[in-house]
């Protein structure tokens, strides 16, 4: 760094007492200070206190003195209602990116309070810890710095949380008014697979729903499903116009590998932009994991087809049973004139348990293989007593499928407790309701077998120990607690990785140690400029809606790349 590049300004993040003090001291030393806070006002937690000492005066007087000093200091620039977006560079010369949210009230305000009298929206007053209400136009505490009032108008929590940011409040409002088709249009603006998501989305939006803090969150997922079902019924009755014929593509050819949610979304978006899209799918059905791994009782096949039809209708060519590999390589795709390639191959390779006896006996079958077999039509009963190992959705699905195939006893073995189980809570409840028996805090030790067939499994009980580096409590085996469960089928469902065996030896792609593609998170571009990747192939096993979000990002990344060419 050149000495002349050395900056004499400081960014202080957080305008509580520590931030304010640091800013004041630096400013007094003659430095330029930017004092940033997420809240529209400054003061932090100390401003909320009654007093700071048993025999002191009101803390608002004490922090008030700091407010005063800050507001009078020529070297301090307040940037409130703002979020830090990036810090780059190095000591002496950092570059800072900040997004300052709109206040919507300007310096002209003289605190007459007229707006406050008429505002009909009453959010909780967070400065008073929700013990009172305030107005949507408000002064948040008494610092009055830098401005008196502001209007909080940010995205609702549900929309903020949704990985694809559907305008949930709007479509729920439309449903409340009986405008179901309009509601579905709002959903389709951000989500090309609404029928699927109406049934199997893990709906993080509901977790953030403010109504949930009152009693129960809005059933956002079920409302989405209702809107889709409503349209589906009308269409089946022939009451809606036919889908229009696809437009002719006007832009370059793009190849997509994998017709899962990420690939379908990417194709959908790019086709809408005018690109010529071909999706290459190894299996004989579209939908990827949605079709292969999610059982029909959760997601009927015609529902998948319904969403896929809309995408086909945009002119997307979905070639089923067309694997990319030795026969048809990525280079072949390039040669065919595809200017960009999106890899949405999912994560289909089951991880090993790493216990003795694994793979030795018949009756030991990986969950993905098991679910695929059933979902592609083989509804034969695998055995009488089934153990599923794992705590994710695939584990629960495998168990419930086994019950439906007529297995007598189905167990799930999970090494942590119910609270840590990653599967959707409602799925676990249903599974138990249907008769699946779950052993929490238990892990496999050894697969037992006789005459080449599985006969059972030796397990150990676990206890939760200290937090590990990831902040989760690590399960530890309890010595001497071993027990045996008899079984003739064992289904490990512990996790999956992308299966990258289709790549040629000199593919040149950067691959992580989990066999996933390494990408730039903003554009989804891999280290090869014309190859993009997203969904489980990048993140490892995750959710539908995250794959859709990745598809969106990749489509805009590819579009930007091709336009820049």
């Amino acid at each position, binding site marked *: 760094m050149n000495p002349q590049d050395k*900056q*004499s*300004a400081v*960014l202080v*993040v957080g305008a509580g007492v*520590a931030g*304010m003090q*640091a800013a004041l001291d*630096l400013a007094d030393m003659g*430095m330029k200070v930017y004092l940033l806070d997420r809240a529209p006002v400054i003061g*932090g*937690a*100390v401003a*909320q206190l*009654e007093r700071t*000492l048993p025999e002191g*005066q009101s803390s608002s*007087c*004490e922090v008030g*003195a700091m407010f*005063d000093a800050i507001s009078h200091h020529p070297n301090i620039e307040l940037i409130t209602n703002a979020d*830090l977006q990036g*810090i780059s560079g190095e*000591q*002496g*010369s*950092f570059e*800072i990116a900040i*997004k300052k949210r709109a206040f*919507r009230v*300007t*310096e002209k305000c003289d605190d007459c309070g007229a*707006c406050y*009298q*008429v*505002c*009909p*929206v*009453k959010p909780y007053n*967070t400065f008073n*810890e*929700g013990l009172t209400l305030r107005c*949507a136009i408000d002064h948040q505490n008494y610092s*009055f710095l830098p401005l008196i009032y502001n209007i909080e108008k940010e995205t609702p929590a*549900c929309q903020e949380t949704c990985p694809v940011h559907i305008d949930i*409040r709007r479509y729920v*409002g439309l*449903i409340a008014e009986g405008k179901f088709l309009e509601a579905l249009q709002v959903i389709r603006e951000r989500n090309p697979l609404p029928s699927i998501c109406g049934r199997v989305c893990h709906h993080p939006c509901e977790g953030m729903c*403010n109504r949930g*803090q*009152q009693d129960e969150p*809005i059933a956002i997922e*079920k409302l989405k*499903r*209702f809107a889709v079902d409503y349209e589906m019924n009308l269409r089946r009755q022939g009451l809606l116009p036919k889908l229009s014929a696809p437009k002719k593509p006007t832009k370059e050819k793009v190849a997509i590998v994998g017709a899962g949610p990420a690939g379908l979304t990417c194709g959908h978006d790019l086709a809408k932009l005018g690109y010529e899209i071909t999706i290459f799918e190894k299996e004989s059905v579209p939908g990827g994991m949605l079709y292969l791994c999610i059982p029909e*009782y959760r997601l009927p096949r015609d529902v998948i087809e319904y969403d896929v039809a809309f995408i086909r209708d945009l002119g997307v060519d979905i070639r089923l049973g067309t694997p990319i590999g030795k026969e048809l390589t990525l280079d072949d795709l390039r040669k065919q004139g595809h200017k960009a390639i999106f890899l949405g191959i999912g994560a289909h390779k089951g991880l090993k348990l790493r216990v003795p006896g694994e793979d030795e006996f018949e009756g030991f079958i990986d969950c993905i293989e098991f679910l695929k077999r059933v979902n592609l039509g083989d509804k034969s009963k695998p055995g009488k007593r089934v153990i599923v190992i794992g705590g994710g959705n695939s584990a629960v699905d495998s168990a419930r499928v086994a*019950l439906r195939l007529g297995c007598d006893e189905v167990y799930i073995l999970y090494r942590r407790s119910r609270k840590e189980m990653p599967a959707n809570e409602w799925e676990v409840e249903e599974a138990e309701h*249907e008769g699946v028996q779950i052993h929490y805090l238990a892990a496999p030790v050894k697969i037992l077998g006789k005459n080449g067939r599985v006969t059972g499994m030796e397990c150990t009980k676990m206890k939760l120990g*200290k937090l590990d580096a990831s902040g989760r*409590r690590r399960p530890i085996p309890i010595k001497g607690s071993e027990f045996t469960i008899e079984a003739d089928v064992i289904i490990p469902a512990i996790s999956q990785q992308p299966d990258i065996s289709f790549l040629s030896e000199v593919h040149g792609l950067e691959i992580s140690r989990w066999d996933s593609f390494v990408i730039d998170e903003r554009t989804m571009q891999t280290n090869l400029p014309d190859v993009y990747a997203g969904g489980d192939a990048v993140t490892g096993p995750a959710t539908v809606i995250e794959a859709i979000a990745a598809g969106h990002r990749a489509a805009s990344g590819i579009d930007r790349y091709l336009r820049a060419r």
Partner: protein
Amino acid sequence: MKKRKFITEFPDIPSKRPPEPSLPLEDRKGNFKEVELGYSEEQAIAEARRCLSCRRCIGCGLCLAECPLEAIVYDQKDEAIKLKVGSVILAPGFDEFDANLQEQFGYSQYPNVITSIELERILSPNGPYGGLLLRPSDGEIPKRIAFIQCVGSREEFIGANFCSSVCCNHMIKQTISAHQKVPDILTSVFFRDIRPLGKGYEDYYLQLMDQPEVKFINSIPKVVKEEPSTRNLVVEWEKGSEKESEEFDLVVLSVGLWAPQGSRRLGRLAGIQLNKYNFCHTTPFSPLTSSKPGIFVAGAFSSPKDISQSLAQASGAASKSASILGDKRELPKAAPRGEKEIKASNKENRIGVFICPYIGVSGEEKKGEGWLEYARSLSGVLGAEVLQFPCWSVGREEIKKTIQEKGLNWVVVVGCQPSISLPIFQRSVEEAGLSRQRLIMESAFKGAAEDEEIKRAIAKAVERAGEATEEPVSEKIVPVGLVIGGGISGLTAALDMAANGFQVHLVEKGSQLGGGLLSSYYTLEGEDVQEKVKSLVEEVERNERIRIYTEATVQKIEGREGNFLTELTHKGSPVKIEHGVCIIATGAEEYEPREYLYGEQSRVMTQKELEGMLAKGEPLKGKVAMIQCVGSRNEEHPYCSRFCCGEALKNALKIKEAHPESEVYILHKDIRVYGFEEDFFTDTVDKGVHFLRHQGDLKVVNSKGLQVEFTEAVNGERVTLSVDNIVLSTGVVPPQSNKALADMIGVDLDKDGFFKEVHPKFRPLELSREGFFVCGLAHSPQTISEAISQGSGAAGRACRILVKAL
């Protein structure tokens, strides 16, 4: 949005979701029919109508229509800002623990279970009930309050095995406040250990212990239940093996301090390392630096801490940060004067009296007619006013207006703490055209004042207004610092000032730099103390801007802030030093025990002596008893020495490491380890060290070998332990020489003999004589990292003055 409580609205909307039809259980076997069957039209509409629209602006336009100044701009856009800076200080603070995660306490199920922060708001004059202590369910005045400590702290199973450090202080302060507001209120405190962090709080704790209305119960309740008819709460807990319960009107959960929401994102953006609880990772010897050069940290983001520690760190981070910046400085100009300066000197006294309405008993707003009448009757007083919020801009505009309208030449403010608010009133009178010496501020109270005290304060201030003379302000600033004391905080302060470009004189009375840490070998976290101190001393010795005087004592200090002249005796000969500021870092001494057979029995030793042995590879074996609070928390030294619990854990772990079969007993009143030191506490418990709480009647006898006798605190049993060795966890005591130094400077010591700061929370490092600062053990008992933070902090505060010379 975090809260949701007790404000029922939208009664016309059905409260629960309509149940969704599903496939009956018996129909599910042998087929793959869809299980969930979806909503009907009616159900969907009913469900959608439950949406609250989230209480965010709906853009209705009503405010826009009302606003006479057209100040509202609905479609104002977000703004992207790019900045270039040389350094970054992260001070995003903390988030209070979400009490819903500990369901057993009934938070958000029962309206009268509140968090400690909610109680703060309730007690505040500008809070939801105007400062009256009322309970949320019915607005009744509670007569019985329970505090439950450690909610969201020291709980491994919720992922928070750290002590939030401030909640005990919070509870102590709130109990005192509650008693001021409702004098006959009964308080029960459920606790694990009482940990009153920081200066003075041990005294408040002792005061509470003496009050019959306050009960301390050493147990964390199992569950809180509500009595539905009265909405009172029944708290159930275990005492030993017995179950007990009691009814309360209000239950306060002392919620912990967690890493701020978004800290992971912040960590990622800044490229800094976080610890497992998502706080910023720092090390004991670099408490202000993140893992990335140029990014500093202050306040609760690096670990839960109180206001004074946060501010010390903030000043320290400012000093560190400034030292790596470019040298383009723009010093703030003197406050702008009013257009025509009022020539005030020769006229008769025209005094205006301004009184804060919140200084009366219990902090409630007072109209204060009696005070005003009294003030107006005093000679020279032209007018008197009670000002709503005098220290806020609204109130100060009023003061300025009155000065100009009435032609005042003296302004008297009777309010709370001149140490905090004096500068803001000075600014106001200067803006109105008066010299700052024409402002007299008088504090009326300690906590809350009776009418008579307020009148006395008014009279005193008015009298002073007539008498004060204007002193000429010295303009000369000598850009040199003097640091007295060469321990860890003094070394840090010297290095920091030097790094900011100033000459420093470092005076040490001993022959060697390093202070108390010279006899320390490792920290609880496992760092090599000797190595760290050695490299710090070397750095100081190498630094060209630092002049070291060992075997030197200060004889005399004259002058004023910015321009002092100090006389030293350095190795017998006199030296004179000119300097602009002075930092007192004289440290403290280890308590020399006279109790527990120390000095009579070689098998009774101090933790320091044990540490020395351990460092030489001579660990103790067999049965070891460690006795806490030797020379602390007793009548002679009522304060807590802060670090001895950590020392005991550290050495107990070392003993267990070397000889796992040895038995270590830690005999204590409370285990006081703060912040992330808690992890070491649980570690020590896991390793099988025994912790026994006693009732303060501990005795050591030597008959048939060493024996410790005491009464166990929980069940009151008399215990006799036969042990092979006894280790005394001795505290620190302020040196006798503090008194002479304080007298020479003309500042006060606190009642325990440490240097007394201007304001214990908001100006923790300044002494009452301007230009003097204090840090380290001279200030109060503290840990290494706290002493380093204070050393940097004092340097930061001092540099503010020295830069004026540039």
